[in-house]
């Protein structure tokens, strides 16, 4: 187990390093920030002075080496736009995004899982019918569409929630639902099909013949087996939600990392882009690692040597 853990951590570290190398090269390929930092009246000499100050005149491998060396001390450099350490800028925006993604994931699991189980238990029942409308809507419409509809209905028409912003629970409700609906639909569909297969399996039939109470069959025998693919799906959805949060963040003026990343790319604020992508890669790697470990806990058949 420990061996496996170390190997997986090693793999994750390598992935994160590759991501850092790629993003470092790509942001520098997009353009020269001195054109954005200085007014057009600036001469090429003015821009050259700035390039030297920022270290952009050095060869790319040298820049990368010094970047990695600083990174070893947790130093992502200073954002030219904010005149502050890039990591601090990213951290400030990361918290709202993580909050939104986790809340949306909670919505997905809390709504999607029971809905999927109910549909599997009573096919064509009321729950199944509702689930179908719910999932079709959720998968067909993108989160920003729900965002706009929710604002129209729940903010402007009923006045229940603010149209946007950040700070209180009421600010979180609409963006969380708008973002979570899509994932909830996926969770419900997958739970339905996974549960249906399991419920028709021999061992469930056998348990029924044995006279095991239905709720024990559903919760202990069926769901525990059916939930494995759902866990994989949910862990992948976490990444999708982090990325998908951008459109929801924009509509609800949610001060997240998506908007920050977009602005930073548009302003060629290298250090912030690098810090944001690195942190995102770390979050992804950590989630994937956690899920792999969770497997081992839930499914006794999976034992890592």
């Amino acid at each position, binding site marked *: 187990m420990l061996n496996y853990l170390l190997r997986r951590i090693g793999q994750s570290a390598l992935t994160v390093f590759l991501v850092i190398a790629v993003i470092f090269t790509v942001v520098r390929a997009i353009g020269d920030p001195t054109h954005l930092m200085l007014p057009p*009246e600036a001469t090429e000499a003015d821009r050259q002075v700035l390039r030297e*100050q920022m270290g952009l005149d050095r060869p790319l491998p040298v820049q990368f080496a010094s970047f990695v060396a600083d990174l070893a001390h947790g130093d992502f450099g200073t954002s030219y736009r904010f005149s502050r350490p890039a990591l601090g800028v990213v951290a400030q925006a990361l918290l709202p995004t993580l909050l939104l993604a986790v809340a949306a994931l909670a919505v997905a699991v809390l709504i999607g899982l029971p809905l999927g189980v109910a549909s599997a238990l009573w096919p064509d029942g009321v729950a199944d019918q509702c689930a179908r409308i719910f999932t079709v809507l959720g998968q067909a419409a993108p989160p920003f569409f729900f965002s706009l509809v929710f604002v129209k209905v729940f903010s402007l*028409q009923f006045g229940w929630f603010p*149209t*946007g912003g950040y700070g209180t629970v009421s600010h979180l409700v609409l963006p969380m639902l708008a973002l979570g609906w899509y994932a909830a639909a996926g969770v419900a569909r997958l739970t339905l099909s996974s549960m249906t297969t399991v419920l028709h399996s021999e061992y469930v039939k056998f348990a029924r013949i044995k006279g095991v109470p239905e709720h024990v069959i559903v919760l202990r025998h069926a769901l525990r087996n059916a939930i494995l693919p759902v866990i994989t799906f949910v862990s992948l959805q976490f990444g999708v939600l982090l990325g998908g949060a951008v459109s929801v963040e924009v*509509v609800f*003026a949610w001060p997240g990392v998506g908007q920050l990343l977009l602005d930073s790319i548009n302003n060629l604020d290298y250090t912030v882009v690098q810090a944001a992508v690195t942190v995102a890669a770390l979050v992804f790697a950590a989630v994937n690692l956690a899920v792999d470990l969770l497997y081992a806990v839930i499914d006794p058949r999976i034992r890592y040597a």
Partner: protein
Amino acid sequence: MKSAMTQDTRNIRRRKAALAASVAAALAWGFATPASAINGKPAVDRQTVVVAITALPANLDPLIPPSIESAKYAWNAFDSLYGFDRQGNLEPRLATGYEISADGLVWTFRLRAGVKFHNGDAFTADDVKFSMDRVLQPESKSTRRPFFAPVVESTTVKDAHTVVFRLKKKDGAFLNKLAGYLYVVPRKYVQGLPNAEAFGQAPVGTGPWKIVQNQVGRELVFERFDGFWGKKPGVARLVYKVIPEPSSRASALLAGEIDLATEVAPTDLERLAANKGLAAEVVDGGSPLHIRIYASDPASPLSKREVRLALNYAVDKKALIASVLRGQAAELNALIPSSYPYGSNPALKPFEFDAARARQLLAQAGYAKGFDTSLTCPSNQPRAICETLAAYWGQVGVRTQIKVIDSIAYNRLNNTHQSGPLVVMGFGNAIYDPIHVIGGAAIKDGTWSDYTNPEVEKLVAQVDGESERARRDAIFRQVLQIARDDGQAVLLAEPKVLYVQDPQLGWKPQVAGWSLNFREVAWK
């Protein structure tokens, strides 16, 4: 057979569900009309004004980031020696007057007495010198350095309330540059900070508003500065709320969460204008939307005056304004729009739409059969502008290929003469003097210029040494006349800037600029 049937019924059921879903969505979209009128109901209270803006300045130091960023807040928290009124006319702020030496190289400013910074420090000539020196030092990485470094030789403190700028060469727009670019920061306070960057986190100025809270990406909160030297604002608090998406700004307005929305989209304006509880403020934006022409290559058809004029005549600008720009733009008769405080030329007529004349001009130039060219569109401009132009030009035989490029790449290419042959362009201007636009786009050494005209060169050299406004005005008028008749650019429109507010607020926006001025804001 049975399974096929269930499959079919499932499909039908699924389709029904999809239908129900889209109907539900359509209903939700349709029935929602905002409930309450906003009129007279402040978002917070009558001592607070809440303003929605697209983005907060990343760095609150008023001397380092680009002027377009500081325009959003610097006028409220800081002062310059002279400032601009709502129309862009100069008015004294930290200075009470100035004298220019006979050779035009020594500018002596008398400073206002009794002015205090937000931290209680007294304002003196020392602070003016410190601010200018700070801009000029390359280590400061100030975006304003290129405006002053070629001109300013030295700044000296004559006494506590007199400061003298000695120039390397005459600069007729020097006062405008001081007003638009040089905000005065407190020397003692800045030097007492652990590093220069720290000033952006805790800025201190002499303006009517002091910054009390900055939540990056969310909110910027100002409090009225009771020690302000001039007329104080009529409310105690000013809150900037970041709402990047235009339709979300409109929603926040309808929900009564904000008192004023800036940069409203024309589509939202139509929706908001229907609401009686809201008032729109539409002002001329001051940015000439035009097509930059790479005219300097003699082998290109664009080097011929007739061709450039033909491109102007071939386009129905009124139709472009009405449809693509949704009517929210004025016609453009020259590179300097009429909303400028001086330097525009009201006598000039916009080019009328005359395809026959365009064809005739092309034939005169030897292009009766037209020619092939391309039009570069930055991704932040409506693509429909380019499509419309290509269609009109196509009708007179000019076959135009549209190239949409990312706005970052556009910036770099357009500032280094590589975006041609035809390019969509606009201009911001923080100093209200036409030289920024004319010097940039119509003379040989201009950053965005691929156009040379000896007459224009002579006039611009003349205007550089002329600081008297009426004479500058007269010279710029001549320049515009020459440039227009020479087809220096394809003139399209002057887009408007739209604001919507609670009518009880009655705030007036800045004409021909993006600066947000809340120095005298008050509820009615």
